[in-house]
């Protein structure tokens, strides 16, 4: 009985494996100790598109209890936020912290399994070094959740994992409970350049597409084989034999069934449209295009398909498929009804300043004549990112019942002078700019550059 419950819960939580029992490598994350906390007098950007002036936020038991006005117990910690701003914790949908950590030495280079163009069997979480100092820097920038992805050398690079941005000796201790896995896929130059240079497929964009399709055909068959088996089993056929379990196909089957969310690295507009057709062909959903330097050219199509664009504010030109980058990309993807624009980093520097990247994109959009107030732009680094990761019901906005992942900024976050004063994860104060005791230091950084005391 209990075992069956665990089995079902495992399926639900992992959102994966046709054949797996309980979720492998389960999350052991536990919220850190918290106290009932009332932030008062703040300008609150809720992440739902609303701005509340002179508002309060009350966190209790790890969740947001209310936003705006309400009652709080007398023993609550009170933070007077006069003149300061409150937002949901920022979320980066595209990080390589832990898998390409600092220091960036070969021994730590664990983000691309460069041995086969299809490595859907690998999981980025198994490469994460939890002592990456980058997690602490990102926390100081207000990042409370992040997805760590494999790199983009492969057509199907493996599973990404969503983490809570807390230090732990294991990645399991950081793993966002119940968050679905991602499947990292890649278009364009990277796979064809890397494998083409080795004299093997793919060496062209048509080779890329043939590569994905071949895999999807196999994965469809795998899904059907399992369905047949389960049907036989349900009808009491005791001789029914399960198909041989395959790690790669487990992942691809999860993506076909919508249990694993597809994150597609793709720069060019025409290639993104090709991918959307392919998704139609094999009946799966592309959740988010990452980098999408040309996403502005197909903003309407993306909105119509309900696909998010995880984009940079201004990077461009480093390769041909990035040559048409413009600074209005994010604002233009945000423009149509249903548009889902996300500011992502793909960088240990960028993740520390997602708010500044959003500010730049907002300013460019405004100059182009688009009406983008801060309460809208904040969704690019909060709610839309949570949607992309399949965790919007849990975090990404300040609404009653959601995880109390909250940032108190020293002023407007849309400024080069903005700093996170306090960061809360599940209601726990995990960063305080004024209190060194609440500024985590990774094992790697501890004890470096010790001074000799006389």
């Amino acid at each position: 009985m209990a075992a069956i419950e665990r089995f079902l819960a495992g399926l639900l939580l992992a959102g994966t494996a046709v054949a797996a029992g309980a979720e492998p490598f389960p999350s052991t994350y536990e919220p850190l100790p918290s106290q009932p906390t009332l932030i008062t007098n703040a300008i609150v950007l809720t992440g739902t598109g609303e701005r509340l002036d002179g508002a309060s936020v009350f966190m209790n038991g790890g969740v947001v209890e209310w936003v705006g006005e309400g009652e709080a117990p007398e023993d609550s910690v009170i933070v007077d936020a006069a003149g300061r701003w409150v937002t949901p914790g920022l979320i980066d949908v595209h990080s390589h912290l832990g898998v390409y950590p600092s220091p960036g030495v070969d021994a730590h280079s664990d983000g691309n399994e460069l041995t086969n163009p299809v490595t859907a069997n690998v999981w980025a979480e198994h490469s994460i070094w939890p002592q990456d100092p980058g997690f602490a820097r990102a926390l100081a920038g207000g990042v409370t959740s992040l997805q760590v992805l494999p790199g983009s050398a492969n057509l199907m690079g493996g599973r990404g994992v969503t983490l809570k941005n807390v230090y732990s000796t294991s990645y399991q201790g950081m793993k966002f409970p119940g968050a679905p896995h991602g499947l990292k896929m890649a278009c364009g130059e990277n796979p064809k350049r890397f494998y083409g240079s080795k004299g093997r497929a793919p060496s062209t964009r048509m080779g890329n597409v043939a590569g994905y399709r071949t895999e999807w055909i196999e994965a469809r068959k795998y899904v059907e084989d399992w369905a047949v088996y389960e049907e036989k089993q349900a009808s009491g056929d005791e001789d029914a034999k399960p198909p041989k379990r395959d790690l790669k196909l487990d992942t691809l089957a999860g993506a076909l069934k919508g249990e694993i969310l597809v994150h597609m690295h793709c720069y060019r507009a025409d290639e993104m449209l090709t991918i959307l057709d392919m998704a139609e062909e094999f009946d799966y959903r592309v959740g988010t295009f990452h980098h999408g330097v040309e996403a502005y050219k197909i903003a309407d199509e993306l909105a119509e398909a309900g696909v998010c664009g995880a984009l940079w504010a201004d990077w461009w030109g480093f390769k041909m498929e990035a040559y048409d980058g413009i600074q209005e990309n994010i604002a233009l993807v945000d423009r149509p009804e249903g548009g889902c624009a996300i500011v992502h980093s793909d960088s240990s520097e960028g993740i520390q300043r997602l708010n500044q990247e959003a500010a730049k994109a907002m300013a460019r959009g405004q100059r182009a004549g688009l009406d983008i107030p801060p309460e809208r732009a904040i969704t690019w680094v909060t709610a839309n990112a949570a949607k992309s990761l399949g965790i919007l019901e849990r975090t990404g906005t300040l609404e009653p019942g959601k995880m109390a992942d909250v940032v108190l900024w020293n002023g407007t976050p849309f400024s080069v002078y903005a700093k996170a004063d306090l960061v809360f994860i599940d209601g726990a104060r995990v960063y305080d700019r004024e209190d060194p005791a609440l500024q985590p230091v990774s094992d790697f950084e501890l004890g470096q550059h010790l001074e000799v005391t006389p």
Partner: protein
Amino acid sequence: MKPFAPRRLALLAAVALVGLAPTVTALADTVLIRGATVFTMGSQGTLENADLLVTDNTINRIGSNLSAPNGALVVAAEGRPVTPGLFAGISGIGIGEVPAVSQSMDATNAMPGLYPEFDVTLAYNPNSSLVPVARVEGHTFTLLSANSGGSIIAGQGRVVALDGGYDSFHGNGVLQVSLGRGASELTGGSRAAQWLLLDQAIEETVRPPAQGEDALLTRAGRQVLQGYATGSTVVFSVNRADDILRTIRFAQARKMRAVIEGGAEAWMVAGELAAAGVPVLLDPLRNLPGNFDMIGARMDNAALLHAAGVTLSFNDGASHNARKLRQMAGNAASYGLPKEAALAALTIEPARIFGVARNFGSLEEGKRADLVLWSGDPLEVTSLPDLVIVNGKVDSLESRQTKLRDRYLVTDSEMPRAYQKP
């Protein structure tokens, strides 16, 4: 190795082009900016509610209640800030179009051996799309620089004005040397051997090897290096504190004008840098131990260096995204660098460091007119240039990127976008 022959051909072709091409002459505009907050970065300091008149490619006057000459473009600044045109860092703007397209890249000499005579200005293409992309953001000059390829001595560059001219070079050549981590194959994998090679190379400039004797440098290389060993500017890319100290001592002994680029741990030897008068160009966003040469990286590096009296500028080598330098300066200010110092590090300081302050870096009467009118605080990420004047000419504020923007900003387009030609 394969790429050398075509590379050498490209170099020869570039030499021929420079010799033959006509010089672009910018038409001068007459512009009066009224009521601005003018950060002159020069002797006049910061002026509130000031007027600034541009005529004949130069700053004619900065004062109050200036009258507009006939036909002048008059701009009411209403208190908005005006700054000198900004430095675009040490970059490859115009000497490389797309980094992943090797045939479009000319900043690196991968020939094994020491070639201080390698000169990237011979590859400069002012028609590169990167030039207007930087210019519309207010960046009007950059130091073209060779990247380290086959050796620790990368080669020479020079300051170029981003005004579209084929020959818009200013100041003297600047030699680029990369030290520390990633010691090139040529130094056997140890940074200790870098000094051995540099010492021997300098020695060859003093006592040329006899015929048949092993030599590091060509004859041209000896001549070029001799120039740098007698007071010219050498940029040393180096991050670790002890490497920085050794660089200071080496440059002092060899009478080189050293400039430190990188300097992640420069704050640890700030006193020595200040005493030696060695400036630092740093990336103020570098706060992670990205490798073992920058374990001491921290956000207030710029503030600490400034407080110790070190001359500062910024660099991150991002030619395409040179516009990020302004965000970097803002972050340095946010972490304790006084705002005026952050602005100086984008303007007058790099102009002084590279010997082009006569033309760049400050707003002074009689000086070349490169300036920017900003929508707000020039260090703020949400501020944008409202007006850019380059060599006295009002810039169109157009780039390939703004053209693409305007093509796709239109929502109703019956014909393909290819017919939209903004």
